[in-house]
């Protein structure tokens, strides 16, 4: 018996939106799904996993355990460490005080100070991801606004904004990040935490990275909107009396959104690298706050104190863990961006 469903299935050419097509393509792209899955896992681990693990283990990421190292070498993974912050005597490697319990270090300690590496990687991930997302969001916010205004209104406004973009582009980005990070952001802004919502240093790093990278999305949006501005559908909207803000919101923004998604994903990857780099150069997140940058530089040294390779204190785990965390996250963001680029491209045939 022919059902209504079967009849509906043969009706040809039911129009589907661009987003639906993109979603269908994305579902077939296994690498993109894997990247998205890994990223959600990392975000969950960093934002919720840190506090949960701290609760379960019974110690925090900044707690010092003098018995979590033996002659400055941190203990390895899955070690029971005497649960005390006091050293019994000044003699190194003296036995721990009596009647203290032990606490578990799942991934070992982070170095001579004896902090829990797992908790530091998790809490540090939160800081690094906040910087990555925050700075990308800020850059897109500024970039889209200026790019849209420049392209849509043209003329003098466009000239001024374009020269402004040229100016910011001429800044040697990393040098400026370091300079501003060292000086302005060093004392005043680093303490901004918005009532304790963000760890120290996050807001200032978001501000500097965002304020020096918005020109990328601004250029993308400007060139796209310039090519869209005189197309028939925009002129049709103008002729029906649509206001400037209506045209921008309903006709132009949806067109630039896919490109921005792609840029945002790759920018998040770049920002994670930048956080680690600027922190390594001594101008980013300050110790003792954990971030992937501070973890990386605590084993490999910073500019002020480059340790390089020192066989007496070197331990593979604290070096490997932040490196792998940064690598996997950056790889996933890059791959997701690439996949989204091909998925959202209307010209791509599949």
């Amino acid at each position, binding site marked *: 018996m022919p059902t209504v469903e079967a009849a509906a299935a043969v009706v040809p050419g039911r129009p589907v939106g661009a987003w639906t097509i993109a979603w269908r393509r994305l579902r077939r792209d296994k690498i993109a799904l894997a990247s998205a899955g890994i990223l959600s896992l990392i975000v969950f681990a960093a934002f919720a996993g840190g506090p949960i693990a701290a609760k379960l283990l019974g110690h925090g990421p900044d707690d010092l355990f003098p018995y979590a190292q033996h002659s400055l070498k941190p203990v390895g993974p899955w070690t029971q460490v005497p649960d005390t912050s006091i050293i019994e005597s000044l003699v190194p490697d003296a036995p721990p005080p009596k009647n203290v319990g032990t606490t578990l270090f799942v991934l070992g300690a982070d170095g001579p100070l004896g902090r829990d590496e797992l908790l530091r990687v998790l809490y540090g991930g939160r800081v690094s991801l906040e910087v990555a997302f925050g700075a990308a969001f800020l850059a897109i916010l500024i970039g889209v606004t200026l790019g849209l205004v420049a*392209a849509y209104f*043209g*003329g003098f406004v*466009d*000239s001024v904004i374009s*020269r402004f973009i*040229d*100016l910011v*582009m*001429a*800044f*040697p*980005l*990393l*040098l*400026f990040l*370091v*300079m*501003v990070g*060292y*000086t*302005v952001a060093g004392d005043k802004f680093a303490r901004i935490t918005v009532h304790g919502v963000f760890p120290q240093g996050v807001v200032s790093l978001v501000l500097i990275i965002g304020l020096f990278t918005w020109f990328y999305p601004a250029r993308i949006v400007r060139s796209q909107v*310039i*090519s869209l*501005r*005189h197309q028939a559908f925009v002129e049709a909207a103008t002729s029906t009396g649509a206001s400037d803000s209506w045209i921008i919101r309903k006709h132009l923004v949806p067109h630039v959104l896919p490109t921005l998604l792609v840029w945002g994903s790759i920018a998040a*990857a770049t920002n994670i*690298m930048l956080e*680690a*780099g600027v922190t*390594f*150069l*001594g*101008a980013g997140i300050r110790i003792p706050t954990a971030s992937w940058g501070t973890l*990386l530089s605590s084993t*490999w040294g910073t*500019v*002020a104190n*480059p340790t*390089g*390779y020192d066989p007496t204190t070197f331990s593979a785990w604290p070096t490997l863990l932040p*490196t792998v965390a*940064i*690598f996997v996250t*950056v*790889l996933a963001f*890059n*791959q997701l961006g690439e996949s989204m680029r091909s998925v959202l491209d209307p010209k791509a045939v599949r």
Partner: protein
Amino acid sequence: MSVGWRYFLRRILVSVVLLWVLSVITFAIYFTIPQEPAAFLVDPQHSTPAMIAKARHRLGVDRPITTQYAKFVWRALHGDFGVAYEGLSFNANDELVGTHVGSQVIRAAAVTGWLALGGVVLVIVLAIPAAMLAASRAGSWLDKTLLAVTLIGISTHPIVIGVVLQTFAGNRWHIAPPSGYCGLTGQTANFSSPFDNNPVLCGGFRDWASHMVLPWITFALFFIALYLRIVRVRLLDVLGSDYIRAARAKGASEARVLRRHALPNTILPVITMLAMDIGTAVGIAVYVETVYRLPGLGRLTLGAISGEQGFDLPVIIAVVMVVGAAIILLNLLADALLAVADPTIETRGARRAQAAGRVI
């Protein structure tokens, strides 16, 4: 004058204005931060107010900021960036003596320049043939492996690449010196650590090249990965076009199609992109110089910012101006190159300007 010339004249004028604004901003940033430049000359804890006032006067920092800025611009226009604060002292005749920022910056810029130049050569020599290989066998296992390797390359932090290479190739296997720099001409004192009292004298081409091997590789790896991807996509794009089909139809071999027909159309955009990526390159150079202790612009700036007595404004502003000028100049050069080689660029520029409601 043709439209093209007028366009470039305009661009050059805009570049000069950009450099000027860059100097104003840098000056302004560093004058909003409280610091005492006299601390470089006298110890503020153990000197009388008169001595501090004299030091301030001799440095010229007691005058209003506008006067100081005007003096800076006047001197800079004559190629003089002043004397660095660090290492300043009075000599026997009560005259100020110190290192000239100009020569300091030139020496550092040479190191960074060699680093970048060697790196770019590596990128061109390795990335383009690899991309041709990948593009000619698109979709094959070789192509997929190369793509995966490049994805790893652009996702690994340059610092990590640097430290790993330094630790293994330098410190463990002794393939190349793990850090330090040797001058290409003349002898340089090479300190293996900050506490080293017996520097090794070295110099000449062999020493110079051996000390630059690891930095070059570190610098180039990121860009090789990036450009392999870009050139591959571009090649695949070109290989699908009609004139390639025509070349194949007349019986040209696949190697010849790739080399003589597809590559020339790929290489120019790549060179212009290299010129435009100099901002990123400076950033990576800072990492590389830090890891390998090369006395380049990055380390010069870091030292000037993180000095104990405060920041060394003359050095900082000189570096910003030099790097800013290099970025602007190379961008301009890239545009000029593209315009000379691609005759459609001019009309395209004009059309774009028209669409934006602007007349050149």
